């Protein structure tokens, strides 16, 4: 009984998942196991081709595992009757903002998901407005999608998923094609959704700075998870990270080098925390 409850708490669970794109091709994922708790903000890091993007498409039954199982809220994604329920529970936002917007007008695009779910017409409007307000794009509801900036398009894509009222959002490198401003917009939106609306987030990226404020960071290399822990724990592994082609965020490098030189400020990953700790050090 006890065990059943803990299983249910896990919104997303990968169990020994192996995935091959072609029947006798290379394994993109090699026996990966992990789970995501309700309300968590998990970042998956890895270089291009590490297999991290495959995880996104496996998490809502767009791909089905070659071996092993993926569970969404305890439902196996391999069971066909679970397909729609899985996609409703776990929404996926993709990398290229241009290639995931279906409609020409912002609010029509956001309505696409709930329309497919046959949400009653009387509730559609409320869902669309709410989702757009959540990502700060409500004023743009009548704008043409192709005229938006990259960051705005990506926020519309997030709203399109939100309008389906998912419990978890998986974002597959949503910032890779954006400029710094767009990256900040998307990051802030996702953080807010996790904090204020308690939406579980699985954020896939190769930008290290984006991992600093996560609850948990997983590092994927060559189809396997090689690190899994809090950002502080993960970023201590400077050499291992560099070996798999990743950088350590500047702030973490700065504190590490200061520590080596006899100035220990503690575990610091964000600029705010650094400024605060350093001033405290100077004053005390």
């Amino acid at each position, binding site marked *: 009984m006890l065990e059943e409850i803990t299983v249910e708490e896990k919104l997303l669970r990968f169990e020994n998942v192996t995935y091959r794109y072609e029947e006798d091709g290379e394994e993109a994922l090699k026996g990966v196991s992990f789970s995501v708790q309700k309300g968590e903000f998990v970042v998956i890091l890895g270089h*291009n081709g590490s297999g991290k993007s495959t995880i996104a498409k496996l998490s809502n039954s767009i791909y089905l595992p070659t071996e092993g199982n993926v569970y969404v809220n305890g439902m196996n994604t391999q069971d066909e009757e679970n397909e729609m329920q899985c996609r409703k529970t776990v929404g996926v936002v993709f990398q290229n903002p241009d290639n995931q917007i279906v409609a020409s007008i912002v609010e029509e695009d956001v309505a696409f998901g709930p329309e497919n779910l046959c949400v009653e017409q009387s509730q559609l409007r409320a869902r669309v407005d709410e989702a757009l307000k959540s990502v700060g794009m409500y004023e743009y509801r009548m704008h043409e999608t192709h005229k938006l900036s990259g960051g705005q398009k990506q926020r519309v894509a997030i709203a399109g998923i939100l309008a389906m009222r998912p419990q978890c959002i998986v974002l597959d490198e949503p910032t890779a094609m954006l400029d*710094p401003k767009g990256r900040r917009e998307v990051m802030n939106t996702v953080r807010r959704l996790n904090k204020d609306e308690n939406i579980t987030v699985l954020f896939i990226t190769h930008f290290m700075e984006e991992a600093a404020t996560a609850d948990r960071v997983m590092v994927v290399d060559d189809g396997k998870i090689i690190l899994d822990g809090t950002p502080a724990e993960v970023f201590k592994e400077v050499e291992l990270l560099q070996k798999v082609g990743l950088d350590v965020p*500047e702030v973490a490098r*700065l504190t590490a080098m200061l520590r080596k030189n006899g100035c220990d400020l503690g575990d610091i990953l964000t600029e705010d925390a650094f400024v605060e700790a*350093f001033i405290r050090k100077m004053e005390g």
Partner: protein
Amino acid sequence: MAFLEVKNIGYSYSKGTPFEIVALHDCSFSVEKGEYVGVIGHTGSGKSTLMQMLNALVKPDSGTVMLDGKDINADKETARDTRFRVGLCFQYPEYQLFEETVRKDIAYGPTNMKLSAEEIEQRVQESAQIVGLPPELLDKSPFDLSGGEKRRAAIAGVMAMKPEVLILDEPAAGLDPIGRKVIMDMIEKYRLATGATVLLVSHSMETVAAVADRILVLNKGGIAMDGTVDEVFSRSDELIAMGLDVPAVTRIAVRLKEKGLPVDPCVYSVPQAVSMLLKLIGKKEGTA
């Protein structure tokens, strides 16, 4: 006179209609032979338009672009010739690959230059080597390459024209740290091999600060700053106000300065920041 000279350039879109938008106004700067210049500006600052003027793809409404003392827009021949002398590599260049084989694709530019077959083959080999594409890939279809290899093949296609000025618009966009380093290394290799002038367009101050001699900052269609890396970073607070992506250590330095600490905001690398902060602590402990 400088090798590349841009004088009082102005440009607007949809000119003469009510939709007219001024993209650039009164831009002037010059670049010497062999210089490595970083061009920084956020989306919409006009930097892409400006770069397309340097190889005569876009003709300015006013002002002139002089290459080696000659107006590049003087006539059609000069304009076309300039395309080969000033190589422009667009953002996400892998989306412009089209030939049956990588070899033919890299050869597209040199073929348009009407070079001899031997010369073309030699250039293909050379540029493939600079970007690190192994010879066995040359006979593959470009569409069978991996994402990173495609990007390299596309950049090789521009390098094969052996331009005296190489302009790259966000050549590392979308790549991971290793991929970014590979691209920066091959630009350096090309530079050393040919002595070419390089203009690197980027959003990231960090990338540019690490390689360039000089930085041009574009803002709202005009040139906001033009100076050495140190000169530009000594105005870090302005860079941040423009919404540019400065390195985290620079932001930290600016914020510490705002808090009243005697910090020089002109830092852009971790080692610089470490030595500066250690000095501060040392001073404090010295007085205590």
